[in-house]
């Protein structure tokens, strides 16, 4: 058992810090502050990361990854969060890319991966449908073969940043025979194809993050299918378990908590500061402790996976506790902001600086326990797969 950084790790940490302090400007920090992203800034930032070779730490080193140890990845993620750098948009780099480099043809790898690595092309994810949320296998969007094209009809929903995306990766139904999971294929669709329509969903956070995507006789070349027909569920599942490192959002929550603590230590109340309130201080401490626990739960999961083992039972709780902690941080932040969390200031700070970002984060953050398989579904899975109930 050993959790100490080696001298190499410490040198690496220094290098990361130097790089970040030089490159993470206030402008870059504005790339993502809560709900909406600024795509231009994000492209700029991801290109900076790419130039340094650090945009895809989890990819195999030979195709653009970093070859880092888990400790290095851990250090990198923490330093990034600490610097206020926005997380990279995951849909290309973290979600579709692993599917492509694991299951795609050489042709597909050559065609799609470089643009993802260079942030030239933006992706979004077409999984959920109105009737297929937590029960994803119920999806209905149809792709029917017509010559060397699929003709896609149907609707996706909750599509994050579809409005900025060039491509969408979709699960579509190519067969209605057998088990529901066995008739699903994995398609890559150019958003500019005729028949693709994006409609904004008005969400409670008053930002534009989510969309519906409609497919009306959209013709998709067969060569855009990943792997075999009707095997899409297998690829998607691998993807779902592929990216475990970021799911808990530990580094982001740590940063959020740090900001909150700084705010309460400065914000004057009467003759003292907000941090003097013992009940607020206790609530913040509780969340911090929870987060300290989750950080190690995540490290235990990463360590057991990277040692070649299967993820241990501890990994099952990352999504649940991670999102609950994110929500708790955002709830405490709006509580700390007082009245000013409730004013829609249209860009101008009123009362205090934290508040507008705080309420957008709080409101958008309610979705975190719903998406990616709701926390209820996660509990069902743990009950069945881990506890054998």
């Amino acid at each position, binding site marked *: 058992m050993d959790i100490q950084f080696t001298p190499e790790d410490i040198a690496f940490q220094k290098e990361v810090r130097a790089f970040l302090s030089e490159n993470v400007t206030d402008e870059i920090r504005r790339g993502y502050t809560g709900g909406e992203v600024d795509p231009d800034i994000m492209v700029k930032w991801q290109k900076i990361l790419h130039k340094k070779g650090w945009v895809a730490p989890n990819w195999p080193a030979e195709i653009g990854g970093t070859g880092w140890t888990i400790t290095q990845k851990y250090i990198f993620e923490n330093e990034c969060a600490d610097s206020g750098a926005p997380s990279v948009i995951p849909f290309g780099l973290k979600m579709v890319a692993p599917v492509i480099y694991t299951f795609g043809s050489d042709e597909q790898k050559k065609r799609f991966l470089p643009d993802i690595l260079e942030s030239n092309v933006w992706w979004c994810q077409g999984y*959920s449908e109105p*009737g297929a*949320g*937590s*029960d994803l296998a*119920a999806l209905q969007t149809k792709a029917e073969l017509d010559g060397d094209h699929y003709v896609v009809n149907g609707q996706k*929903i*909750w599509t994050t940043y579809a409005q900025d995306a060039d491509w969408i990766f979709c699960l579509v139904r190519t067969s209605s025979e057998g088990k529901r999971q066995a008739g699903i294929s994995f398609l890559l669709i150019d958003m500019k194809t005729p028949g693709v329509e994006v409609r904004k*969903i*008005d*969400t*409670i956070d*008053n930002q534009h993050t*989510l969309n519906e995507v409609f497919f009306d006789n959209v013709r998709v070349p067969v060569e855009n299918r990943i792997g075999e027909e009707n095997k899409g569920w297998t690829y998607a599942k691998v993807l779902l378990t592929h990216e475990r490192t970021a799911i808990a959002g530990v580094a982001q929550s740590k940063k959020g908590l740090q900001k909150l603590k700084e705010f309460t230590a400065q914000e*004057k*109340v*009467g*003759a003292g500061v*907000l941090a003097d*309130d013992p*009940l*607020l201080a206790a609530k913040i401490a509780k969340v911090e402790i929870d987060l300290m626990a989750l950080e190690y739960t995540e490290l235990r999961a990463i360590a057991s996976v990277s040692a070649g083992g299967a993820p241990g039972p501890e990994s099952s709780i990352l999504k649940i506790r991670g999102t609950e902690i994110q929500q708790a941080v955002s*709830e405490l932040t*709006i*509580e700390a902001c*007082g*009245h*000013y*969390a*409730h*004013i*829609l*200031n*249209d860009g101008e700070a*009123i*009362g*205090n600086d934290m508040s507008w970002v705080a*309420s957008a984060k709080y*409101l958008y953050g*309610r*979705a975190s*326990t*719903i*998406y990616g398989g*709701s*926390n*209820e579904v996660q*509990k069902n899975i743990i009950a069945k797969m881990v506890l054998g109930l």
Partner: protein
Amino acid sequence: MNFDFSEEQTLLKDSVAKFIQNEYSYEARQKNSQSDAGYSEKNWSTFAELGWLCVPFTEEQGGIGGGPVEMMIMMEEFGKGLVVEPYFSSVVLSGGLLAKVGNENQQAELITGIIDGSKKIAFAYNESQARFDLHNVATQAEKNDQGYVINGNKSLVLHGASADLLIVSVRTSGESLDRDGITLLVVPANAEGVTVKATRTLDGQRAAEVQFANVAVGSDALLGEEGKAASVIDQVADEAILALCAEAVGSMEKLYKDTVAYTKERKQFGVAISGFQALQHRMVDMFTAHEQCKSLLLRAVLSYAAGDSDVAKNIAALKYQVGVSGQAVAHEAVQIHGGMGMTDEMSVGMYLKRINMINTLFGNADYHLQRFAELSAA
């Protein structure tokens, strides 16, 4: 001991409930909320016609002498409809101040204006450094021969931009945390030196940031006794808490009932999700939270009406519990609605935002928990 409404109270309840039912669909509410004023003038006239604006005023003042029970009845229904009209701001807050310490002229002119709907009056009590302390007043008013000259800033003035008049808490003596030295002045919203910046609030309502730069008002602007406004402010704050909590309890009822209804419709894995026991138990918790808050509401309202000695404790308990349980119920409602709960298409998110706002107004849950603990120490 009885919890039954009188005949008049039942009529009032039915009248408001019917209006909410028929005229206040969520779509209509959203339309009003997004209009320029942020509410419907037509509705406001209806409120006046139906006699709702006069409820809390005495007969001499032109009202019907309604007490906290009547106010609870109305606000609970308003909470079900997420009403955006400035009832709370104009009638409960400003009306409350005028009814308690207004002189004959002020009552004759301003209360009459409130009751007939012709005057909307906002209460500018909040300042950005004050957090929840109503006596933390830094806005200064200097006295001279003609009256007062006001300088300072007020924040989150509810419905401040649509108000004809502002009642402003100012400091005429003492330091900014003193209880003594606070004075109320009635200021026309269009007086020289008054700058009103309209803001929207997350709950779809309106507020304003108001600056006072050498605003001169006459001696007749004085409302109540100079330097002694703290106690009337406290009293109106108690009534404000009762009203807001009644509203939140109405919203909580709507939230748990809507959630129950939604789960009966929504299917996953081939069955209605209402059949999942884990969700059932959580909806029972939502139901329980509502019933318990309703009990605290009745307790506080009845003790306020009776002038009991433990009224302060009851009000602090109410505000704490409604803050905590209201948010818990709203969070669960969003969660159980799933993705749909995140959209403006469903009302559930708007209830969440309103409940959050109510938690913050006049002191949040922890503020009142600590107040309660002090009041209740052995």
